[in-house]
């Protein structure tokens, strides 16, 4: 049974290592508002900023061009840095790139690598907590939207979504619908029906 826990709520009588939890006097407490399942002790946050994690693929915007590289806005409290040495092309201010987080150190300097410029298209921003829902089980949701709209869609872990070509308006509407109704069950069927209806209009 999953339940909603609040900051300071007791989640285990024994000390346990749980992300977003903390241990005090041999007991484990939650530090966020989230979902907690006792059978599978894991805290899932319901809200929150994107915190970069190594190997995440994100969509960034070039924020500043420097001699050594680029500062990249990755929709997080921290800015990413893309070294000019590692990038094959020169980017300009405002360019949109897909990139991988190479490393995050203890003071949250975010190192990026493997950048690829996303040319054209448009950007959509959603809450990072809802990204898994937009992707779906084994990419199901994403594949469905791609198939119906014939758009190129790229989803960053940071909640930025790049859409290009095809029926991009419909793709954006579908993604926003998923975000809005992320908490409901039977969403895949509903989105499928929604896409069918819109495509055949």
């Amino acid at each position, binding site marked *: 049974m*999953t339940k909603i826990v609040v900051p300071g709520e007791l989640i285990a009588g024994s000390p346990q290592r749980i992300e977003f939890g903390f241990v*005090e006097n041999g007991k484990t407490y939650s*530090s966020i508002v989230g979902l907690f399942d006792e059978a599978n002790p894991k805290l899932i946050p319901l809200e929150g900023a994107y915190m970069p994690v190594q190997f995440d693929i994100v969509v960034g915007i070039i924020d500043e061009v420097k001699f050594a590289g680029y500062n990249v806005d990755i929709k997080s409290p921290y800015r990413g840095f893309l070294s000019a040495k590692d990038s094959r092309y020169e980017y300009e201010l405002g360019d949109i790139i897909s990139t991988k987080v190479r490393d995050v150190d203890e003071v949250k300097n975010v190192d990026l690598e493997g950048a690829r410029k996303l040319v054209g298209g448009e950007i959509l921003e959603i809450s990072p907590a809802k990204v898994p829902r937009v992707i779906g089980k084994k990419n199901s949701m994403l594949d469905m939207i791609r198939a119906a709209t014939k758009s190129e869609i790229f989803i960053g872990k940071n909640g930025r979504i790049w859409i290009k070509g095809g029926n991009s308006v419909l793709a954006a509407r579908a993604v926003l619908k998923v975000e809005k109704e992320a908490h409901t069950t039977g969403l895949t069927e509903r989105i499928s029906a929604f896409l069918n209806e819109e495509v055949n209009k």
Partner: protein
Amino acid sequence: MIIDGKRCDGRAMNELRPLKIQAGVLNKADGSAYIEWGGNKVLAAVYGPRECIPRHDASPYRAVIHCRYLMAPFSTLDEHGRSGPNRRSIEVSKVIKEVFENVVVTEKFPKTAIDIFIEVLQADGGTRCAGITAAAVAIADSGIPMKDLPCALAVGKIGNEVAVDFGKLEDNYGDGDMPIAIAPRNNEILLLQMDGMFTKEELKKAFELAYAAFPKINALQVEALRAHYAVKKDEIGIERGD
């Protein structure tokens, strides 16, 4: 001010004013809460963690907390200046900031700032307590990790009687007023200010009354958060993309 053991608004000594909390009322803020406590109407908004401005305030060890408590010019009978911070609100902002520095897990977000805005739309005594109570809900709503959900309450003295949750009248004409903020998980005191004089016995009595009332306030905070998130319950990730 006390007639037949009842206070000027008909409350018993240990009775709180009607209290209503709502979480997530603002769209653009990362977290927000609205509280109505007696005649108080207070809105709290939280942004962050975000880039720290001014830059030299930032710490490489933890997030810094900025807090701005402000009374709207129309919040009381007498005009409250033109909305800019004054000496009183700067002090209140500082003590509220210190309350949250003790519960927010700031070490997780080095180099950033967490901004708390507390706007008093209508004041009726005990606004800093209402502000702290609302801001705690707003921070929880924003997803910033916190070790506890602080709540606050003002205890005061009318003659030789001690009573909880002073309103404006009692605050102005009573004999003492003591706002207390605690972390309800371990009952740690996060804020304790006092105006007037309390004897040792009165102080003890004041704490007894306050600690009896805190669980009620905390329950309402938790309820506000649960009500806001109940809809979102199965929202996330049982379906996780590989």
